[in-house]
């Protein structure tokens, strides 16, 4: 029932700018995920929406009403904290009923609601337990119940890394429950969920807002973020990538005929065509490569300008033997390392680009045949469909190191 709008939010702590002119809109009933590495400013942003922190500048609107100066107790949202913040001196029932008591609601009604919400999250019968007696998964559900009790008016639920403290296995199984609960007929919540796990974001979000060092890099659906990352950071964050440096080629001879239409009229490819166009590049391989670039950038990049080509590990294909003549955008190489990972096989393929050895990372769905045939040291051809290659303006080596080097 509420539309949230953040306008030019800035927050500094001493010399550090934690949030830099952030604007964001969250639509009613949307499941929005704010995704970014630790320290990006995500939790600060959540706290500003909740009113726990006041921004240095900028405004927060709930349904076009300026709530920036409103205290958290008046915003009527459900906030679930990382590590849950269950009141240690109160039992589960009192924790969950706290909101009702504080708003002086009818105690009988509150009690019924508490039982309902406990049932919904499979926690009945543990009313008198104290938080330190519960497992991580149970604490998470209690924290969720407590937050749900407070959002009647706004139907806005804010989750600060709700699954971070749980084991990996539990995390995967509880994720979907969160989504189903938020989208249920009964609740129909607007959710703002913060996480640093890109797979979690892809699993749950209607839209993702990617934030790094206090700036929002991109906001879009999982499709948009995955196929149309707006910069190297976003591309890198969403999956393993391969990157190639090269130059743009704009004087194209007609006989080259590289821009064949995609073989199948496929939803995926059609979507991509909408926002980008093909471009020819030279990355130092034997042949010229073709990939796609955003329409705006296509004008800005001149012939000979340095570019960066990104191809996700998942978008490379691999064939045994030398198939350079048959496939565009291909490299000849040898399988250096291979690893069975379950759903996927991961290959590291050594190829030569301009007399320098480069390792291309490829992940393909694992089958028994692959297990038997694609062995280490086999000669292979790796290639990618041009629609899945993404071209950026070359951001400079410093920027590349900043994004890719982990320190």
């Amino acid at each position, binding site marked *: 029932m509420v539309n949230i709008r953040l306008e030019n939010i800035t927050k500094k702590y001493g010399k550090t700018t934690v949030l830099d002119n952030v604007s964001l809109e969250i639509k009613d009933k949307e499941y929005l995920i704010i995704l970014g590495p630790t320290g990006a400013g995500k939790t600060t942003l959540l706290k500003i929406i909740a009113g726990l922190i006041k921004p240095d500048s900028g405004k927060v609107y709930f349904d076009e009403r300026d709530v920036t100066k409103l205290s958290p*107790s*008046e915003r009527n949202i459900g906030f679930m904290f990382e590590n849950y913040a269950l009141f240690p001196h109160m039992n589960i029932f009192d924790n969950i009923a706290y909101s009702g008591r504080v708003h002086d609601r009818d105690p009988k009604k509150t009690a019924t609601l508490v039982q309902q919400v406990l049932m919904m999250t499979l926690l009945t019968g543990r009313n008198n337990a104290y938080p330190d007696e519960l497992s991580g998964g149970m604490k998470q559900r209690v924290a969720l119940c407590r937050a749900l009790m407070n959002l009647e008016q706004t139907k806005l639920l804010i989750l600060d890394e709700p699954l971070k403290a749980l084991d990996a296995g539990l995390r995967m199984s509880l994720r979907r429950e969160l989504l189903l609960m938020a989208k249920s007929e009964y609740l129909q919540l607007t959710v703002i969920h913060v996480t640093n796990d890109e797979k979690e974001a892809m699993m749950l979000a209607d839209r993702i807002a990617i934030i790094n060092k206090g700036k929002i890099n991109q906001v879009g659906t999982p499709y948009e973020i995955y196929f149309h990352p707006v910069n190297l950071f976003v591309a890198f964050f969403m999956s393993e990538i391969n990157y190639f440096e090269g130059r743009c080629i704009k004087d194209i001879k007609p006989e080259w005929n590289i821009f064949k239409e995609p073989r199948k009229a496929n939803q995926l490819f059609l979507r991509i065509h909408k926002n980008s166009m093909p471009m020819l590049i030279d990355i130092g391989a034997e042949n010229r490569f073709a990939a796609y670039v955003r329409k705006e950038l296509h004008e800005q990049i001149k012939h000979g300008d340095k570019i960066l080509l990104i191809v996700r590990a998942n978008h490379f294909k691999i064939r045994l033997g030398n198939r350079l003549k048959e496939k565009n955008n291909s490299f000849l190489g040898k399988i250096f390392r291979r690893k069975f990972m379950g759903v996927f096989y991961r290959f590291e393929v050594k190829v030569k680009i301009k007399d320098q050895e480069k390792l291309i990372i490829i992940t393909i769905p694992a089958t028994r045949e692959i297990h038997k045939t694609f062995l280490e040291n086999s000669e292979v051809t790796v290639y990618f469909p041009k629609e899945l290659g993404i071209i950026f303006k070359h951001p400079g080596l410093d920027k590349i190191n900043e994004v890719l080097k982990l320190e």
Partner: protein
Amino acid sequence: MNLTKKEEILQVEESEVKKQLPLSLRIDRFFSKPVYRKSLDAITIIFFILVIIGPIINIFSTIFLNIPKIYHDVFNDELLGNLQWLNILRGLGTSFSIATIAVIFDLLIAFPTAIILTRYEFKGKKILDALVDLPMAVPTSALGFSVLLFWGIFGIEPGYFLIILGHIVFTFPYIVRNMKIVLEKTAVLYEDAARTLGAPGFTVFRTITLPLMKEGIIAGSILAFTRSLGETGATIIMSGLVETAPILIVGFRRQLQLPSASLLAGILIAISITLLFSIKFFTRRVGFPAKKVFPKLERFLSHKYLRITRDSLAFTLLIVIIIIPSFFIVSQIEGQKLSQELFLANDYKWAYLYVSLINSIQIGFLAVVINLIFGIPFAFIITKRKWGKIITILDTILDVPIAIPSAALGFAIFLFWGPAGLGLFEPGFFMILFVHVTFSFPYMVRPIIGVLESSNVGVEEAARTLGASNLTVFRKITLPNIKQGIIAGCIMVFTRSLGETGATIVVMGNVRTIPVLIVDWVEANNFPSAVFASILVIIFSAILIFLLRTVSKNARKR
């Protein structure tokens, strides 16, 4: 480390490498053997028993062994009947009432102050923080004198009321510090959660902050209560004709009425120990009403203007009742009178001043060294040894010197080591040193325990996996990490020693330390000299406190 050597070195094969441990590491390995650790533990425990437990047990045993004599002197004197006993009761009653009133008043001012200092952000916060700590920098006798001079302007004579005003000042920094620590530990997280659930400020405080602080506040209040109970130096200056229990002890001692002194000391010690142990076992029972909510009333109470009024009131009281009286003395230097009395008079006051200063510094320094030698191993025993209940007992007894009235413990030490007991020491320099070592031992150990507990066991394990023996781990890893705690401990010991009055009076014989000199001079009405001496010590202590804050700030930064 010289990276350019890389070019010069040929590949060094492992087989060519000399594998000979340097001497320091070999020594470490040798002394890491369990037998040495156990010996060190034993020596430390013996020290602890002798220094702290011994005198206390001795007091009680003396009392029991001398029951007939005590009974005669206190209850059944030929001339006075049970007058002594009535005196004792009166003194106890006075001390108790003073302590209660002072602590309550302090809590009222300390609460808003601590909240402001831990939860708000504003310009000048650092200054307020330092201001609040400062009375701790002033040794008690100088403090008492300053309070006396200040309120004297308003016509308040030495006596019961003045003592209360003095004790409020004296115990305030401890209560505030304790509250700040407790508030800092109480996660803001829970308060934030409560706010998002709709609770206005006052409700958050009552239902969340207060219950979570409960144990810490009670512990802090009880400790503050016992300090007030035992305060001697300042009280002597401010008391006029009123006699608190510690003053009585000092009096008994001066008049060599040892049985009465023993009894009162024993009573005071017993009360303090009981209070101390009760902290550990009974704070859980006390509850605050946290369930009922009064939304309209509490929203009103949370209103901004009410908050500002309350904070301003607290701030005003803070300045008027605590800060100004503490430092009033600095304004009381009268140059001419001072030089006349101190330097030109022919009773060599300045010589006394000089000697007392040297004594205080020497004693302080030696106390630091001795406590360092035994305090570090003791802190390790408490945090690292897995001796179960024994550790809990040692941990509780450790605080006894803080909780026990200094005059009482001073007397106990006098009894144990002096002519009436083992006869190893005469009243004088070394007995004073002994007393100071006993009193300041917890002040050395507690900060070290603090850093040891919060320090990372993991890094020590990492060092061991890399091949370091236990002693090497201690030298290269643990020690650098607890450095801050050790320095803090040393500063606190020195400060405490500098200000120690009550017990020193009991055991000093003819030797003087600065705080005692101040008391002497005030009693003899040599005010300008007393002012000068007080200011001297204040400057000294202020520098020390400043150092302490710098060291703690650096520790927190990492």
